[in-house]
């Protein structure tokens, strides 16, 4: 069955194509991932320098911005 090609023409009983939920998950994971990665790196910098959260704050903001940039570039706004 795996070798058989799918029908060329759409048929009436075909179900709807899957909603592009993958794209939504990609957007969310970029946004949260950006803030987590750079916030986490900022947290490490905080520990290293002994500052109290300033690097983590900067990291989270930069990461969030980078996440938005990635969404625009990868998914095309």
């Amino acid at each position: 069955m795996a070798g058989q090609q799918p029908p060329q023409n759409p048929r009436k009983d075909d179900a709807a194509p899957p909603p592009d939920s993958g794209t939504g998950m990609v957007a969310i994971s970029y946004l949260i991932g950006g803030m987590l990665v750079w916030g986490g790196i900022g947290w490490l910098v905080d520990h290293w320098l002994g500052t109290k959260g300033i690097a983590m704050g900067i990291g989270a903001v930069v990461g969030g911005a980078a996440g938005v940039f990635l969404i625009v570039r990868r998914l095309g706004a």
Partner: protein
Amino acid sequence: MTGQTIVLAADVPFPPTVEDFFLPSIVPWGGDNVWLTKITLLVWLSVAILIVFFLWAYRNPQMVPTRRQWLAESIYGFVRNNIAVDMIGREGVRFAPYLATLFTFIFVMNLWSIIPFAQISPMSHIAFPIVLALISWVLFIYLGFRKHGIGYLKHALVPPAPWFILPILVPIEFFSNFIVRPFSLAVRLFANMFAGHMLLLVFTLGGFAMINSNVLLAPISVLSWAMTIALTFLDLAVIALQAYVFTVLTASYIQGSLAEEAH
């Protein structure tokens, strides 16, 4: 108040806890041995049901399908035409067997959570979703390296952007493509099945807890049990949706690995 709580606890265990998911051995001499519990039995049953059903449905294929052949073909055709081909394109046909297996296996495993006497899904133990997510994870990374060679790393990690912001973007790409993906696949499926079972436990046992504490609360207990029935139907929708979402996301990751250029 304390005395009442203790009396209640003697009648029905309320509220339900995570301990309720760890079932005792089903063989009488098993004791605390966890190698054969209801969970293990349900996993083996799921595998057996799927193998037997598809072999039986295809034992004597007809040009005009019989009813069971129609059912098996509809399930496979749905995954092949509406998930594999729609998401991956024409070469998606070769992933249809894997995706169809994934879809039917997750669906049957999830379905146990609302089948009488089973009433718990093995998927509410995170070990099972983790293994499925790892298989999909290894698959899309392997496909990426086979298609692009070592250039897959560039394909997956380097977005189209000016060079001076790449150091900021590459760690995010790595995190979201190789760490968040398997994690979210596993946790999404596990959490849905866990929460579904927990909800049913809360409403069923809560009804007993209320009627035991005060007879005047009996109407609310009945309402609680009616909610259990309604939530069972909600669970049915969640069961089908989660099997579908897991399959669609796996297909979309495969598609990302096979894509010609970064996008």
